[in-house]
């Protein structure tokens, strides 16, 4: 299985905004990237910044921010799902028609998916972490079963992005089952006996639960992790996660790592 990495054009490029719409608690940004590859691999990500007004007033943000692509439409349009959690995501969430983004990517290695057409796949997304699960689900179609968890119904609107039906849980029960998505995962694995491979993205505590659940059951799992990134292409050595083989840079050796390489998906600097 070759590394699921589509090479990026060298350097950053200007990508005009096509749309910026509210999607429940999140925003969905579509940008035109005619010069980028149309085939990034699910789990790869892009570094984004606004072309104007990035870090105004002498304050953060200064470096760009990392975002998994949610969908690459074949026509050169990329879609990103955003949650505003700080100055960078807030500024990006306010881009308006006529503005452009600085974009570098696709970056990192995506999910390694067995090519065996009979292999079964379990896709687990939590919160904003559903973004790379969207394109992975597109790719796997019926072969990929999707489990999603959100805080509230407002966040769960992101589930409408999926073309295939997905099982849904919310923390407060305002949409789908009142449960953590890891409970759905545990039940699902215990039902099936553990044959499928698991692919997950979400907040660190969720990923750690996924890791532990899969480890107990000897189910292979791949986790798309997050840590603070400055460059996204291996230059700064800032985005490391501790693995059984020492620190690895999530932007070039990840963001998708084999769960088996981790003692824990919860580490200092994990998440945003």
């Amino acid at each position: 299985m070759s590394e699921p990495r589509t090479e990026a054009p060298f350097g950053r490029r200007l990508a005009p905004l096509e749309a910026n719409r509210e999607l429940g608690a999140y925003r969905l940004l579509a940008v035109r990237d005619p010069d980028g590859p149309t085939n990034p691999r699910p789990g790869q990500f892009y570094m984004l910044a606004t072309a104007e007004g990035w870090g105004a007033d002498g304050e953060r943000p200064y470096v760009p921010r990392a975002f998994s692509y949610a969908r690459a439409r074949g026509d050169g349009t990329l879609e990103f799902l955003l949650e505003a959690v700080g100055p960078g995501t807030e500024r990006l969430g306010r881009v308006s028609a006529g503005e452009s983004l600085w974009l570098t990517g696709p970056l990192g290695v995506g999910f390694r998916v067995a090519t065996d057409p009979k292999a079964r796949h379990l896709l687990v997304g939590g919160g904003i972490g559903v973004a790379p699960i969207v394109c992975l689900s597109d790719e796997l179609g019926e072969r990929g079963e999707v489990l999603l968890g959100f805080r509230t119904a407002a966040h769960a609107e992101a589930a409408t992005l999926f073309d295939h039906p997905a099982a849904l849980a919310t923390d407060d029960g305002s949409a789908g089952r009142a449960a953590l998505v890891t409970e759905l995962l545990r039940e699902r694995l215990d039902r099936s006996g553990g044959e499928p491979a698991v692919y997950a993205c979400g907040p660190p505590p969720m990923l750690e639960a996924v890791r532990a659940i899969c480890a107990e059951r000897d189910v292979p799992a791949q986790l798309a992790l997050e840590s603070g990134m400055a460059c996204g292409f291996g230059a700064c050595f800032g985005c490391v996660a501790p693995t059984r083989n020492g620190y690895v840079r999530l932007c070039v050796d990840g963001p998708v790592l084999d769960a088996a390489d981790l003692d824990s998906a919860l580490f200092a600097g994990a998440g945003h």
Partner: protein
Amino acid sequence: MSGAFDLCGVPLRGPVLNGSGTFDAIAARRTFGDRLLEEFPFDAFVSKTITIEPRQGNPPPRLWESPAGLINSIGLPNKGLSGFLSGDLPQLAELPVPLVVSVMGFSRDELGALVAAVGERDQVAMIELNVSCPNVETGLVMGADPAETAAAVGAVRPLTDKPLIVKLTPSAGDPAVAAAAEGAGADAVSLINTLRGMALDPRTRRPWLGAGTGGLSGPAVRPVALAQVASVAASVSIPVVGMGGIASGRDALDFLDAGAACVAVGTENFRDPAAGRRIARELAAVSRNERGFSAGRTRFSQDRPKSPAKVGKTVK
């Protein structure tokens, strides 16, 4: 312009280098493929600092942003000397530009061993001595005072014919340290390294960085860097590689006008992987527009207001 410009006798196609530790050409090639080689952004490539033993680096988190800058506590992760020579050097040798290897030792012996081993490799054009660490023998930061710097440079100078660039510590705004390096046989000095800085975790209110404090870089430090480069360039006659917050061709021109022979781009690479190329292009444009001539030997070796660099020294 090829051959028209050199640093310490090593011909360079232009004056734009990278700062050590701010561009990993091997990782970048995995990311961008061979287009990286075709459009290589720097006129010489400076490796991340290597040490004798492999290092994992500091615990995360290692990065925090600050106004117009970045604070890092990376902690010099590297494969160690033998890992570098066997694993990285062959790949770095494929780059289309001369290679500068940055080394740091925790004693003069370690520094000597690194310089000797790296210096005998044909793929290596120059060696940069990162002397920002405490000497385990004397307890002093090697690059913090003139005598200590002279001793370190003097100890390794006989071990190689390759040009030695001494990377000054930021506390060495004191030009006496640069003069001591020159006196002990350095062929060039480079500055500035990062300034000590700190940020708190917005939630826990404790230091954010895994290592407590880190080094500040980026445009925030540019005025400090420019002042130090001007003062060092005025007090040595070897070339100065100026860096610290360079983000545009105009910034680069400022450093050259302040007396630098070459410039290096650091943090700006993180915002724009091809920043080196853009800055070189912008530099050529501002030089042409404002001076009536384009970048090249004349420009960088003779048109500096103070202390012209001693360029043209041969490598061996």
